[in-house]
């Protein structure tokens, strides 16, 4: 039972990471109906930026927040410069542009920082925490906590601030929003910035456990896709819940049923399964198109 609980908890910890990346994907999907294949690589690249600053002697937390700010600017820039021209283009062009971004960030990281893996520090204490008879890694607990804090902040931002309201309006009905004076284009750019910032947080939280290398996010991105789809790709809360679910399921299946080698295949089955059986996910809205 103990081992089982530990597996569940470890699943929740990785699930938190998937949840953050899924949240970033959902943010962009909601605003633009595009799935950002480069999300994972942007997160990975931001983590390298944090690593550079920490390696140069900066304390962890200033580097953490500075990285979030840099990632935000990076996200806004990508939207303004690269994504904007293909906004109305066919899906294939958009996918090709995103895949292009993916390989550019991946190769830039490899070019600048080489492909050797790097150790990324954790801000949380190294000693495991006791709760009753159980030992929990402080980093895992911390990562879950950070995810929940990010979620709460985002919720508050979208629910209680005028800017959040404007962003929601721009995503839901661009034309009417423009008529009431919302600058829709900038709202989209802002959405990209926020998504990149969330991705950066996820990257910095996952790097201490999986180590930093240019390909660290490819598996995580897949799980995040699965999480977003399970939860409903247009529902932020659903995506977070989906992230935790996928994390726990993945860990339990890995430990007891299919073994660690087939974990990615599990994500594949989950993605295809959800898309075929219930494309709107557990909590998503069902879309009806008039033909």
């Amino acid at each position, binding site marked *: 039972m103990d081992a089982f609980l530990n597996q569940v908890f470890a699943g929740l910890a990785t699930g938190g990471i998937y949840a953050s990346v899924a949240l970033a994907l959902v943010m962009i999907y909601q605003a633009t109906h595009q799935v950002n*294949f480069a999300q994972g690589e942007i997160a990975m690249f931001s983590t390298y930026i944090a690593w550079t600053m920490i390696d140069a002697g900066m304390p962890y937390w200033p580097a953490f927040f500075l990285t979030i700010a840099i990632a935000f600017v990076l996200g806004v820039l990508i939207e303004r410069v690269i994504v904007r021209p293909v906004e109305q283009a066919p899906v294939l062009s958009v*996918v090709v542009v995103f895949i292009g971004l993916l390989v550019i960030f991946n190769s830039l990281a490899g070019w600048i920082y080489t492909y050797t893996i790097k150790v990324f520090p954790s801000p949380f204490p190294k000693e495991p925490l006791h709760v009753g008879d159980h030992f929990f890694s402080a980093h895992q607990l911390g990562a879950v906590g950070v995810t929940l804090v990010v979620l709460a902040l985002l919720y508050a931002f979208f629910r209680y601030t005028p800017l959040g309201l404007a962003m929601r309006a721009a995503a839901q009905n661009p034309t009417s929003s423009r008529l009431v004076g919302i600058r829709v284009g900038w709202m989209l750019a802002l959405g990209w910035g926020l998504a990149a910032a969330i991705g950066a947080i996820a990257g910095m939280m996952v790097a201490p456990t999986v180590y930093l290398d240019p390909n660290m996010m490819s598996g995580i991105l897949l799980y995040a896709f699965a999480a977003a789809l399970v939860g409903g790709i247009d529902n932020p809360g659903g995506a977070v819940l989906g992230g935790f679910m996928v994390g726990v399921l993945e860990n339990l299946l890995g430990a007891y049923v299919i073994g660690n080698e087939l974990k990615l295949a599990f994500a594949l089955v989950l993605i295809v399964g959800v898309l075929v059986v219930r494309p709107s996910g557990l909590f998503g809205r069902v879309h009806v198109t008039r033909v």
Partner: protein
Amino acid sequence: MTPASPLTAASAAPGKSRRIALAVLLLAICALPFLVTNYHTFQLTMVLVYAIALLGLNILTGYNGQISLGHGAFYAIGAYVAAILMDKWGVPYWATVPVAGLVCLAAGFLFGLPALRLEGLYLALATFALGVSMPQLLKYKHLEYWTGGVQGIVIMKPDPPFGLPINQDQWLYYFTLAIALVMFLLGWNLLRGRVGRSLIAIRDQPIAAEAMGVNNSLYKSLAFGVSAMYTGVAGALGAIAVQFVAPDSFNIFLSITFLVGIVIGGLASIPGAIYGAIFIQFVPNIADQISKAAPWAIYGVFMIGFVYLMPVGVAGAIRIAWARIRRGSGRNGQQ
């Protein structure tokens, strides 16, 4: 990206001068292995292999509009089928190619069935997942007896038959060339007629196509199967040429390489597959000299650049330039 109808170019009966030009080109292609080193011959063989794979992906993505980011998986299946047949059962290399094609036809058709329910972005997502998870599936320990696990399988390079006075690399080049010609001829026949028109109609106006009596589901899953078959044949030939298969050479970046190839060569274009193959074979070789990461940076920049500046790809650009030259010289061009 809406490529200009490529069928006009493909279905136009080749004129006499064009036929002569094609014959000269073919002769030049046949003479190439005697003019370059063995290593370059091997590279040219790989161009042909990639061209077959790209034609396959183009049937699906370019002509039928179904985005696949996981065609590396079918290439891998083809390669492994060939390698396992040769390694475990001693099947001659030439017999593995059709088997690989058939296995991939079935695999593609089966994957195409759930894919019917997925459109655009979602299909891209599902195939992306297929591409990412393929290496792990190949490493699966219960398949290790056949796949050789992480180590992969080493296979022997075939000797030229009938005591032909050429070396192994040259023979492999001609063998691949023959299969490539057959595959391209088949593809050209398939795409210039009824089937090709149906595929394009489904891509551009699925509802109208359905109303015109095109069986959308059948054609879409068949396109998936045929596309996978082409890629599987290419995978088998690639395995024989490289003499080695291992899980990590079939990662998601292989699938992305194919996507780069059709975007740069030209979507929905048969010659585009060849231009794309030349690009993905030689550009990384040149760029590798700058840095190990450089080829991918160049791929990325080219992908985005082509989407913005030349969405019709190299094949489309050549077509446009050719049409301009013909108009310039006062003749009444077909285009």
